[in-house]
């Protein structure tokens, strides 16, 4: 069983985002990136499956931001192989079609049985990666997955729906699963172990061709949304704010 886990680096939303000078993307100069939180969940689920049934796990990421560190960290957590996709990704940022095409050719070359990746990222303008990737590979897919069990040629998965509903599905392999949450919180890779990987482990590289066929979208404008109404801000010391909040609570129907 060979599980491939594509990891995408996307902006850390704790940081303030700005629009670039051209107004057609966010300003990516000096932007703090992190592995998309859903991809972290996908990697964790892959590692849990490896522990449960002896799969091989290959982590892949495109060569931007801190790609090397992302891959060494994946190895430190327990991935068997780490592969960096090298090429021109300058037009890929708000174009998931291009990234998915690069991933599709990689997955085909690697001969995977299963792809686990995050169900979404914070910058999905033209569809989510797992479904685009599956559609391009011609593989079945399930999104919003919260549990995976493997048999020889199929995966039993749980798919989460709104209102607390959970569906059980059986998917024939090979397949792509868009992971919402792993069975446990993502593990932590100790710094010492990551360092050890940086010294001793090898990252593989694969060149991917520039992808011509993109999303078919033209980004006209990127902007910070104007809001019609904003909250009335209550100010003062903690003590004063608490008194104001209490007044609001009582006025708005809290009976004390």
């Amino acid at each position, binding site marked *: 069983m060979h599980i491939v886990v594509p990891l995408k680096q996307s902006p850390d*939303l704790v940081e303030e985002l700005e*629009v670039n000078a051209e107004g057609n993307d966010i300003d990516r100069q000096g932007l703090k990136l992190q592995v998309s939180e859903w991809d972290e969940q996908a990697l964790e689920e892959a590692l849990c499956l490896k522990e449960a049934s002896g799969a091989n796990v290959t982590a892949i990421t495109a060569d931007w931001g801190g790609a090397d560190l992302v891959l060494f960290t994946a190895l430190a957590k327990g991935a068997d192989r780490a592969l960096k996709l090298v090429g021109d990704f300058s037009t890929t940022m708000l174009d998931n079609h291009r990234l998915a095409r690069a991933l599709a050719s990689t997955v085909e070359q690697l001969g995977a049985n299963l792809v686990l990746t995050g*169900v*979404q990222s*914070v*910058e*999905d*303008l*033209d*569809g*989510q990666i797992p*479904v*685009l990737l*599956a559609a391009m590979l011609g593989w*079945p*897919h*399930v*999104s*919003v997955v919260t549990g995976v069990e493997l048999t020889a040629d199929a995966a039993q998965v*749980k*798919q989460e*729906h*709104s*209102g*607390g509903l*959970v*569906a*059980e*599905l*059986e*998917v*024939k392999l090979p397949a792509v699963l868009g992971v*919402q949450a792993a069975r446990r*919180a993502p593990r932590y890779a100790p710094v010492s172990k990551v360092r050890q990987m940086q010294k001793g482990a090898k990252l593989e590289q694969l060149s991917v061709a520039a992808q011509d066929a993109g*999303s078919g*979208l*033209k*980004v*006209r404008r*990127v*902007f910070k*949304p104007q809001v019609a*109404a*904003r*909250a*009335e*801000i*209550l*100010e003062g010391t*903690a003590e004063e*704010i*608490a*008194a104001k*909040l*209490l007044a*609001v*609570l009582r006025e*708005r*129907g*809290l009976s004390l």
Partner: protein
Amino acid sequence: MTGDVYVVVEHWNGTIAEVSFELLGLGRQLAQASGGKLHALVLGPEAKEVAAACGAADVTICVEHDALAGFSPEAHITQLAAILKDRSPAFTLVSNTSKGMDVAPALAVALKVPVVTNVAAVAVNDGAIVATSQLYGGKIAVEAELAGGRAVLSLLAGAFPADHGKSAGAGAIETVVPAAQLGGSRVAFKRLIEAEASDVDISKQEILVTVGRGIQDKDNLPVVQELADALGCPLCASRPLVDAGWLPKSRQVGKSGVTVKPKIYLAIGLSGAPEHVQGMKDATTIIAVNSDPKAPIFDVAHFGVVADLFDVVPALTEKVRELRG
């Protein structure tokens, strides 16, 4: 190409999803703007039942087949693509739900048309479709123009009014023969597990305290639990805290959790990501506490406090306790 609009209607076991009315309402508007007809697409053995709720559409297309029971992404995409590939509609509208996330991008690839995700507004300017998406947790909006005048749009729930999609009228019903490939689906729907029974139903409370990632650590939870206890209401949480196992699933507010409409909603250390806002925006009074003055939660809240929750929350708890004696 026609100016027709097709809406993918969602339902479980014959009960139509509220979000489908939002899509039908938008679809009606777009059909008028582009001079086409509005079609509703209903799949599954209960299709005819659901069609009765789709009076806002000119035509409701029903496909009944056992492979379309429940939700198998592959079976649904196969059937939808079979219907839509020869009809070349201008718009195919899908909701950005779990089902919609599986359907929209795959359908776009199958139909060879662009897809726009997380859409909160749509306009037609001189024949060009312009869709506005909310990305980066609602912090940034992106306006995309679609070449070719055709698109699959995946729409955020709650972005369009549902009332416009509800109609007592009855449109025409068109029954379509199921696609031949349905039998060979590689994804089989097994069963639906109902939500676990819980100690408390958070959708029926008058007041709720909900905590987000601003709480930082599980060990800090008592700070907000004490406020909830003082107010006599349950403590709820956003998705990341539930995923981390800090609070049970039955206490999760938002898209994949519970939709709540209390009289008072206290959002503590919550940024206000669209997935969360979708589940609480209809609360009568929303009060938000967050140290980031630019947090999107302040766009939906009625009252806001820009401060460290660890200062303000204990002070409020103390005040409530004093009053309650």
